[in-house]
């Protein structure tokens, strides 16, 4: 009878910067599974820490003659999909945000 802790291992890899969509593959069944509440909470905390450490992005608002405004986002709002493998071999896929979004004050 496996203890709960080992049956549900904490498989968070070292914090990648700011993940967003994630998937887990249970090696026992070969099926995707979702992270536990504890895993998600820890990931969120890691992302916040990484985000705080990221340099603020600077966006330029372009005002067009007709009143339109546009902002080149670069890769600031790309939603990363990461795959991570834990010590037990399980994978997870995560949809993640970019770092440092939008940290600059309104213009």
């Amino acid at each position, binding site marked *: *009878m*496996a*203890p*709960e802790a080992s*049956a*549900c291992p904490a498989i968070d890899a070292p914090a*990648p910067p700011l*993940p967003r*969509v*994630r*998937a*887990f593959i*249970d090696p*026992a069944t070969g*099926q995707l*599974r*979702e*992270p*536990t*509440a504890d895993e998600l*909470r820890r990931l*969120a*905390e890691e*992302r*916040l820490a990484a*985000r705080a450490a990221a340099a603020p992005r600077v*966006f330029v608002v372009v005002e067009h003659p*007709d*009143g*339109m*405004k*546009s*902002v*080149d*986002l670069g*890769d600031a*709002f*790309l*939603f*990363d*999909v*990461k*795959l*991570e*493998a*834990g010590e037990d*071999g399980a*994978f997870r*896929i*995560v*949809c*993640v*945000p*970019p770092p440092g*979004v*939008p*940290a600059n*004050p*309104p*213009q």
Partner: protein
Amino acid sequence: MSRSAWRGALLAALVLVVATPARAGVQITIINGNAAGVGFNDATPATPVGGNTGTTVGAQRLQAFQYAAGLWSALLDGDVSIQIQATFEPLDCTATTGTLGAAGPTQAISDFPGAPEPRTWYAAALASRIAGTDLLPGSAAEIQAKFNSNLGTTGCLASAQWYYGLDNQHGNSIDLVSVLLHEFAHGLGFLTFADPTTGQEFQGQPDIFEKHIRDDSAGQTWDAMSDAGRQASAIRTGSVAWDSPRVNAAAPSTLASTPTLTVHAPAAIAGELEVGTASFGGALTAAGVSGNLAAAEDPSDSAGAATTDACSPLTNAAAVAGRIALVDRGTCNFTDKARNVQAAGAAGLVVADNVAEPLFIMGGADASITIPLVLVTQSDGASLRANLAAGVAVTLRLDPTRHAGTDSAARVLLYAPNPADAGSSISHWDSSAFPHLLMQPSLASDLKHDVDLTLPLLQDIGWAAAPVVPTAPRGPVHREGNDGPPRKLGPRPEAP
């Protein structure tokens, strides 16, 4: 229309798009940004798979991209061309973690000709669709997408593989089309530009997505709230919902009934308790399983020191037989607990969490377990246990009047974990929605290339649905057998 029939109609529409580009639908074009010999141009031979007829790795990648873009193109109406700048290239990767890919809008635009709302940001693709023209001619594509070409190679998650087939038969591989459908939806506007961790709006003005984010506690939409209000709202799990006509209308036919634990007596605690479900065990039904709760008792032994964890065969089987067993979470697998109380003759199982946390899905698999089981919070479990002497009569059931992933007003919940999860928060459906939705933050293995509630949400922010596409049906409202019943709040399946 059945799911297969709907998919057939969708494919027919897709073929139509390819065959007759003059159709007044959104044209989504994949711009191959790779150099010769790499990425989409990788000439490594490949065997056609799952409807993908490409004979090189590069050709299969491109065909999967074009297929996913074609699915969206077939669903969206409008006389506009959207470009997706796409590459397959080496991205950050190690043996244990790596980036599969990334996608999103390249520009935010406001106050464009024909903009429905002034001083409101729109993703570039949506703004161009509404304006009916390319608002930034000569600039970059409206959406950028880049995916990892090294996945599955030595040093880069070697055991993981992309599945380039178009038929969703991906097995244990990563279904590229599903990931692309999700990512492209972000690029089409399924996101807020506001920062959920600070509450700040992007460049000091709201976006169109914000105007549909309703905080049930505050009774306001996000665009009407202060930075502090949005920051607080972003972590009100279960209280932040999408509020707009199309999604509200589509939710009942899309989402499953909500599992619940009805407490009939004693009167002091009578009511409906929110529950987490399990990935195994008997399916909950609308009629449910009723009985009095009975505390399961087992020996304090090497399987578990506690006498309330049901980690060993019960010592009070006669008291549990025919009743709903109450056990505490901890020490052993959920399947072990269920097996032991079922062996004692219990008709159902209620597991009380041993941690103060949101509800989740109890993981595990055991086909021999046929009784239904639910998880209650630590505090609800304590309340039930404290009243056992008075006789606690309960029913484990599905509540057909509520749907998994909705608030009390039947609005579909958005993902609002505490702490906030930077970009994931708010820009996805809540994890409690069931069946799984395309735009939940964790990719589920059972996605079927459906766009479920994503399409009506895109319509709510300004996209138009192509008239040839029927309303997407969903499967049964709940699943049978080991797939377990529909999910409820805070649905995080946990390995046993």
